């Protein structure tokens, strides 16, 4: 590791600390319905949306109504995305003629199972892509189906987090807010304005934003090169801010148009974290004790820094087998060293490792380097981040509500240790809350481990519909432990609603499209609905006064307890699977074993 590499991680972290409070204060004002400096512009539009949508702004909802609204929006979103994909061959803005008889020879067919998987993927904020966008999606599908869900699914995540916070903040209340109002305000005052500025910055740095067809050029050596174009920057901004992560291009943010410079990359990483970090401050402010928010922030930060440095260390150390073949693994002023397979020269090892950590701490899933080509320990960090439910700043909203669910478990364990009824921010944590928290945590691990196990052994017959013949494990690009990691990563990424991949897996088969689709649905809704149930239950409770017997949840003791809970739950659940994947591969690599 070099001083410059460490500085990149440290300075990025300082910037995150600096934006947390302003972002939190602003979101607090938006969700409390206070006037902001954006109101003169967006307030009339907000009213118009309520009028057109048939939404009564002042109406409050119970947690059941709130859940019903959330499901309603998700269902229609799913239908829209599904139909737009299936019909794209008949719709405008399709200059590459995808899904038509004139499609290029390398184009991917828009099958029902692919459209299903993608529609689930984008409505659940996952952005898992079993297709390659370069060869599959028209401009219209990208903009009006996929990018719209990048806004909507992000707004839904934040709305759920806000509702859960209201559960803690309110007492003896029957309602937790209005879903439609929360989603609309989030989109108008938080997501859109930041995206507009970020889009312009990305274009200034070199990202494309046009409706032209592909540019065909003659290279210096006289060959023909077709360079795809399109409305990229506007989608890029919300892909990062909404922690969606679905690339406009197959190479995602590694593509030079999708991430032209290291400076653009810095903004991309900040966009991933800004709302997740800001929500921790908003949480503290809404429960009237900002130290509660900073305690959550501290737990997240410590885990973030640990992950970033472990990943950077592993990637800069590189692959000893390549060193033996005569490649430079030490960083020098003129070349990056480390492990450069699947990395871009402009980003090098420290920045790629940092981005991989950030994108999986949050449920973003964009990549600037191919995680599949990371060293085993470098790849273990993103995998473990996803498996522990992405609680480190997290997906917008999802990170905070997941972390609060872990906080419920942590105070429960703490309560068991000292023999008192657990409390968190003035609310008694009882049987119902703990049950709901455990349902949320268990549901994701059941689908991740269950589907990985089935795919590892399931045989498929010759000529069948679901998959090419043989085991589903044969769809992986790599053998042995690494191939297992590719499957484990795929299902973790789906259930974690992350969307990044050990991309060497051919997941565009009906089997994977269906199972990963189910995996994403469980990971999203069996997490959100228990979270809203907790919100409803907490809101109806009385505030209990702080006594000398209360475990303080705004200090370092709680931070340690919370981190311990996340790591222990994650380790107990996933250690056996991780041992078969990246951990065994690490020792194979050190011993020079190839597969």
């Amino acid at each position, binding site marked *: 590791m070099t001083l410059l590499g460490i500085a990149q991680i440290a300075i990025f972290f300082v910037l995150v600390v600096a934006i947390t409070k302003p972002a939190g204060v602003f979101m607090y004002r938006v969700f409390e319905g206070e006037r902001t400096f954006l109101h003169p512009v967006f307030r009339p539009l907000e009213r118009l949306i309520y009028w057109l949508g048939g939404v009564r702004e002042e109406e409050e909802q119970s947690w059941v109504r709130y859940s019903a609204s959330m499901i309603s929006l998700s269902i229609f979103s799913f239908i829209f995305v599904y139909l737009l994909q299936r019909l794209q061959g008949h719709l405008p803005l399709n200059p590459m003629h995808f899904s038509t008889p004139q499609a290029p020879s390398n184009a991917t067919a828009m099958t029902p199972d692919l459209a299903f998987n993608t529609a689930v993927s984008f409505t659940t904020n996952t952005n898992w892509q079993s297709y390659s966008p370069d060869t599959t999606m028209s401009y219209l599908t990208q903009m009006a189906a996929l990018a719209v869900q990048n806004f909507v699914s992000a707004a839904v995540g934040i709305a759920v987090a806000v509702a859960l916070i209201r559960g803690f903040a309110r007492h003896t209340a029957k309602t937790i807010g209005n879903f439609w109002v929360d989603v609309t305000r989030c989109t108008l005052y938080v997501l859109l304005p930041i995206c507009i500025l970020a889009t312009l910055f990305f274009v200034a740095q070199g*990202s494309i934003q046009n409706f032209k067809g592909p540019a065909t050029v003659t290279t210096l050596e006289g060959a023909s090169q077709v360079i795809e174009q399109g409305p990229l920057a506007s989608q890029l901004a919300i892909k990062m801010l909404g922690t969606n992560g679905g690339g406009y291009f197959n*190479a995602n943010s590694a593509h030079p148009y999708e991430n032209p410079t290291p400076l653009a990359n810095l903004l991309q990483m900040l966009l991933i974290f800004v709302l997740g970090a800001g929500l921790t401050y908003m949480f503290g402010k809404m429960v009237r004790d900002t130290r509660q928010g900073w305690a959550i922030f501290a737990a997240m930060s410590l885990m973030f820094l640990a992950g970033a440095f472990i990943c950077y260390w592993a990637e800069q150390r590189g692959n000893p087998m390549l060193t033996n073949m005569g490649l430079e693994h030490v960083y020098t002023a003129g*070349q990056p060293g*480390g492990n*450069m397979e699947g990395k871009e020269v402009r980003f090098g090892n420290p920045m790629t490792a940092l981005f991989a950590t950030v994108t999986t701490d949050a449920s973003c899933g964009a990549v600037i380097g191919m995680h599949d080509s990371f060293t085993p320990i470098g790849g273990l960090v993103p995998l473990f981040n996803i498996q522990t439910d992405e609680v480190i700043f997290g997906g917008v909203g999802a990170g905070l509500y997941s972390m609060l669910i872990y906080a419920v478990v942590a105070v429960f364990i703490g309560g068991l240790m000292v023999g008192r009824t657990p409390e968190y921010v003035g609310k008694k944590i009882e049987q119902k809350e703990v049950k709901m928290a455990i349902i949320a945590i268990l549901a994701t691990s059941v689908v991740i481990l269950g589907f990985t196990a089935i795919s590892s052994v399931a045989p498929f017959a010759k000529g069948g519909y679901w998959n090419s013949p043989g085991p589903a494990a044969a769809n992986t690009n790599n053998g042995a432990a690494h191939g297992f990691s590719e499957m484990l990563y795929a299902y973790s990424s789906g259930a974690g609603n992350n969307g990044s991949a050990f991309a060497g897996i051919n997941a565009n088969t009906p089997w994977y499209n269906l199972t990963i689709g189910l995996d994403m649905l469980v990971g999203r809704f069996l997490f959100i609905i228990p979270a809203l149930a907790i919100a409803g239950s907490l809101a109806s409770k009385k505030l209990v006064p702080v006594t000398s017997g209360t475990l303080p949840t705004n200090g370092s003791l709680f931070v340690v307890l919370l981190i311990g809970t996340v790591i222990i739950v994650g380790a107990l659940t996933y250690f056996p699977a991780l041992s078969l994947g990246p951990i065994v591969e690490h020792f194979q690599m050190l011993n020079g074993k190839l597969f």
Partner: protein
Amino acid sequence: MGPGRIKEQDMLKELGPGFRLTLIFTVLTGLLYPAVMTGVSELVFPKQANGSLVTVGGKVVGSSLIGQPFAKAEYFHPRPSAAGSGYDATASSGSNLGPTSAKLLHGTTKMDDKNNEIVDFDGIGLRIVHYCIDNDIPYQSSIPIDQFKDSHGDLDEVKLIKAFNDDKSPLAFTPKTPIPQDAVTASASGLDPHISPTNADLQAGRVAKARGISADQVKQLIPQFTDRADLGFLGEPRVNVLMLNVALDQHFPASK
């Protein structure tokens, strides 16, 4: 309120706003937002918004952000690419091969239609051989490299790949001083427009020779197309291959 069960009338009441808001957000964030952003970008940053295309003598020769293939000795060579058959800007991709992949390190061969054995995937070992020989970098080899040359003096790549993959006594071919990783590894996008400055320096001699000029003349040109870390600390130093090659053609046209 008990946990779980959602009442039917609640659910149905929420269907209306669900449908309408999906439509409204589609128009607002899916059509208006990208359209307005495109309009503003065209006005303020037209060059970038349209792909940073590079024009030489009135002809578009590429984009300064998108790598393109170069194989001739008189040009600087980019990194290996896993995008399509190499630098295919309609199929961006990395290799997605992991650190214990025999294919990545040693390459693979396959049979073509006429049942001749051909290279399927070159692998890092073969790339190192080419890089050392092309750029006159001293190396040591467990088997003399002349044994892998055919009657024309060209390298037999299939034979080399098989030698790397030999279980009993695999070919060990190493440069005497380590070479930069980026010269022989594929990028994440397959379209990386850059190489490292060290990689460029090592290629300068070959380029100079092919153009009949001195290596110093070429080396003087490299810094003009080298970007340092952004703001002094972000990212890595890098050389833009296309822009450097365009400048070479302008300053030192290759003799035909």
